[in-house]
């Protein structure tokens, strides 16, 4: 049987082997979709047809896996030759050694591009990549509601049409940056230090706080709500980027214009420059790479990308072409691009987003702007603190050696004491049953885990690991940056995580068990229909259903408040209070998780012989007594594994929190695992610290596992 399984595994079709030796083959990774992808493919196709010595292969990698894939693949020589990505990570990638500087072909010198776009791609005095397109927010207006775009922001706010004069994602710092810059604030000061508590920053927060308080803009707007209000004709003006073009309904007559002026200055959104990067360890020849760069970045390719892919292209000879200047939408974005501030590409920028989003949302909930940004400044300082000092590995090695010696001696003695060898020999058949699973688990789970765990003894910065011993752990446990009761401290998050786990497991088990009991009886009518309908929440990918739940909890437009309204309950602002926000998370996860527990319980219930229950009934036991004294005890062995594992999974279930409450308010509904992810992937890739965090989580769960083992032994 196992041979059969192994054979079937080997017969699975393997992916095509990559021919890495052909210098004319250029592998290009991108994350484009829709028309942008079509434009890129059409350029590449004609290049492949016209040049027999060059062959370009494209690979679309989903955005969410893009960075991880680059980080994993490039150092091991599995990366692409070229890739297209935004400019923000140029600092991180170049310091982490993922890039070679791209040499601009003679026909496309750096000064052929709009200077602000090449400036964005410079880091440490080096121009790393070639700009292909730039994107920024601009103003969309509904021509059916208003006749023209007002020249200044104040008259725009005075517009009477629609439910709100202006709608945009007000709680997102990326969108707020336009106001931040208008007041003269900048994220980095002249010396390259983060400064988000300048008077301009405070004034910009004050302004949006006032706009939200007077309901001039809906304070809980996310992307889906913005496009809904615009399409429904409820908002004459929307601030959004070029990606919004695809979300506007065909029958809405709209225009795009640069953002209006504030009294204090022009609204300057962030500018994102998409660029063509050359990966380290690329294998294609310089000639082949030049050919690809010229085809995509050159005038012809630029015009095609502008026309078909609706991209704003930075090549000046293309940008001045009538194709672009006569296109009102592209022209508006080009004009806005000249009035934009490139998103800082310093690696430190990764630590700025999260605290600034929190500060912004505090202000939207009515907090004073000054203290809010001061807190953000402090948090950023914490995320960017220098790594722990390098430690001397010798004492650790000595300690490990000693432990191994003592442990080995103890193990040998213990093995002799309990006569291990003969017992193992007599249990050989058992090991034969175990071997296949044990081998697989060791290779795929335990070895990678040990490797990952070892990282916790190091600090990662700029592509280099330094040994720091246990100092990462000391930092986490001492929680010196925050008081224990602060929402961002390790201990507070631990309590929330435990509460989250208990609440979810309780809901899953009670609902799943209840439904399974209702649906188990053979005489129950329609039971098959109910069963299939009730597992639907498990079957649909939770990424989208979690988002729908978030929408259902929207204060102004959500179904939950609409339902409560039927009973005369005032609208609840679910995400501005810890308990309601936590409840929203639990409700969503309960909905997602009860079908699994129902299915497990249905299976487990079959372990209970029906005649036992019938005997109890004949003996006069009522329904509760039968459940309590017959069903439950017999159910326990088959149900306990699901409960224990369910608790472990819930403990580490961060994506629901990320998608529903996003930690609101003030990061208080985050759980431990989300912190580990943030340390690894935002906040400057502090892998060592992230790994230490993950190990702490592991340790907590391990202790919990010991505890439950004791409990189940005691009750057995």
């Amino acid at each position, binding site marked *: 049987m196992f041979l059969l*399984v192994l054979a*079937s595994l080997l017969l*699975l079709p*393997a*992916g*095509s082997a*990559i021919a890495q030796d052909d210098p004319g083959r250029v592998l290009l990774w991108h*994350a484009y*979709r829709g028309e942008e992808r079509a434009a890129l493919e059409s350029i590449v196709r004609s290049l492949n047809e016209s040049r027999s010595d060059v062959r370009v292969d494209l690979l679309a990698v*989903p955005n*969410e*896996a893009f960075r991880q894939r680059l980080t*994993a693949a490039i150092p091991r020589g599995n990366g692409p030759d070229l890739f297209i990505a935004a400019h923000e990570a140029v600092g991180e990638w170049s310091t982490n050694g993922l890039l070679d500087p791209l040499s601009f072909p003679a026909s496309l010198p750096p000064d052929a591009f709009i200077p602000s776009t090449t400036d964005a791609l410079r880091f440490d005095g080096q121009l790393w990549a070639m700009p292909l397109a730039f*994107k920024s927010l601009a103003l969309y207006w509904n021509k059916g509601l208003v006749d023209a775009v007002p020249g200044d922001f104040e008259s725009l706010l005075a517009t009477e049409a629609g439910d709100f004069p202006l709608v945009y994602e007000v709680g997102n710092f990326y969108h707020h940056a336009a106001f931040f810059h208008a007041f003269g604030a900048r994220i980095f000061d002249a010396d390259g230090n983060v400064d988000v508590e300048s008077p301009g920053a405070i004034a910009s927060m004050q302004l949006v706080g006032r706009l939200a308080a007077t309901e001039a803009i809906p304070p809980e707007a996310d992307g889906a709500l913005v*496009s*809904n209000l615009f399409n429904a004709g409820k908002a004459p003006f929307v601030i959004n*980027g070029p990606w*919004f073009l695809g979300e506007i309904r065909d029958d809405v007559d709209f225009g795009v214009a640069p953002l209006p002026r504030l009294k204090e200055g022009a609204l300057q959104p962030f500018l994102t420059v998409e660029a063509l990067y050359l990966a380290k360890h690329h294998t294609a020849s310089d000639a082949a790479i030049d050919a690809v760069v010229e085809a995509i970045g050159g005038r012809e390719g630029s015009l095609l990308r502008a026309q078909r892919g609706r991209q704003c292209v930075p090549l000046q000879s293309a940008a001045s072409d009538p194709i672009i200047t006569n296109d009102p939408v592209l022209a508006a974005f080009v004009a806005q691009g000249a009035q934009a501030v490139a998103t800082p590409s310093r690696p430190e920028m990764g630590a700025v987003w999260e605290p600034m989003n929190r500060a912004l949302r505090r202000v939207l909930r009515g907090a004073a702007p000054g203290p809010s940004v001061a807190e953000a400044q402090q948090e950023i300082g914490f995320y960017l603190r220098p790594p722990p000092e390098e430690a001397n590995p010798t004492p650790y090695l000595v300690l490990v050696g000693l432990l191994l010696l003592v442990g080995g001696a103890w193990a040998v003695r213990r093995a002799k004491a*309990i006569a291990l060898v003969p*017992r*193992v020999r007599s*249990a050989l058949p*058992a090991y034969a*049953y175990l071997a*296949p699973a044990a081998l*697989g*688990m060791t*290779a795929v789970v335990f*070895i*990678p885990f040990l490797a*990952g765990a070892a*990282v916790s003894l190091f600090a990662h910065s700029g592509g280099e690991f330094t040994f720091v011993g246990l100092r990462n752990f000391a930092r986490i446990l001492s929680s010196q940056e925050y008081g224990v009761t602060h929402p961002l401290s390790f201990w507070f998050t631990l309590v929330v995580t435990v509460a989250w786990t208990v609440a979810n497991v309780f809901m899953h088990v009670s609902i799943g068990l209840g*439904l399974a009991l209702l649906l188990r009886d053979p005489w*129950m*009518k329609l039971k098959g229909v109910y*069963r*299939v*309908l*009730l*597992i639907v*929440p498990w*079957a649909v990918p939770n990424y*989208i259903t979690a*988002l729908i*739940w978030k929408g259902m909890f929207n204060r102004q437009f959500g179904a939950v408040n609409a339902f409560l309204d039927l009973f005369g309950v005032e609208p609840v602002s679910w995400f501005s209070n810890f308990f309601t926000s936590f409840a929203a998370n639990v409700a969503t996860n309960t*909905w997602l998780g009860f079908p*699994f527990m129902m*299915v497990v319980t*249905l*299976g*487990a219930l*079959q372990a209970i012989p*029906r005649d036992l229950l019938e005997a109890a009934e004949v003996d006069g036991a009522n329904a509760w007594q039968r459940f309590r004294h017959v069903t439950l005890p017999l159910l326990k062995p*088959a149900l306990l594994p*699901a409960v*224990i594992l369910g608790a472990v999974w819930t403990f*580490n279930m961060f994506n629901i929190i990320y998608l529903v409450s996003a930690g609101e308010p003030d990061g208080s509904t985050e759980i431990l695992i989300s912190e580990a992810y943030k340390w690894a992937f935002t906040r400057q890739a502090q892998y060592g610290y992230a*790994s230490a965090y993950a190990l702490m989580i*592991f340790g907590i769960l391990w202790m919990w596992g010991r505890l439950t*083992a004791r409990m189940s032994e005691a009750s057995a």
Partner: protein
Amino acid sequence: MSRHVDRRTTWVGQWWRHAILIVVTMMALYPVLWVVKMALTPGDSFDLSANPFPSQVSFSNFEDLVGSTDMQGRKLFWYWVRNSVIVSLATTVVGIALSCSAAYAFSRFTFPGKDAGMGALLVTQMFPGVVMAIPLYILMDATGLLNSLTGLVLCYATTAIPFCIWMLKGYFDTIPKELEEAAIMDGASRWTIFIKIVLPLSRPAIAVTALFSFMTAWNEFILAATFMADETSYTLPVALQRYVGDYSTQWGAFAAGAILVSIPVMALFFALQKNLVEGLTAGGVKG
């Protein structure tokens, strides 16, 4: 007992059960109706209201995913379906085979390291993925399993195995040992007992673990998006995830894909549910 049965088997006798189930089913389906509405509304322009039914119906979002082609004009959708089906079924087969045998050992044998082994399985569920991704990539690269469906199956099966073993071990424990002792008296080998007696009696638990293993592989995208070197070797969830952009998500297309992805799961559950509710009692065994 026939006097009870008469009343409970009628609609009137079980009305309160139906009342509860209808309410719960409606709550379970309401958000899913929204997914359907988003999928059927062209583009991303679904309206906002508490009404979960679409005001216009179009299949353009479905066409976007089903009609995906690459530069060579290959119909990518069918490659993705094929890969997803192969990987998920192989994961189910491998997962069940390995975990049935391991769970049997844990349930019926005593051997040194038994408790440690069960503990180690639980421990694997506690490893946060953040520690594992890069080492796993390096391992797959070193063993030449990068960019192969076999590598994915290995990763998914080992992800699913710990739950499967725990679940099956718990269920095996409830099967009376007397059955096996009788068979041994009749001269049957351990292996025969395992295959001929224990496995058939455990159909409910095997059905649960099969569904679980299948889902583990069916919905995973991060590893598949990181390991596979060609768009024709992606799986369906990877294709779906491409609709999630840095700044915006094509919700209409994502919803359409989500529906296509969940239909096979429902079908599988429908096929398995008979086994789920026919266990010991249906096997004709009276303890």
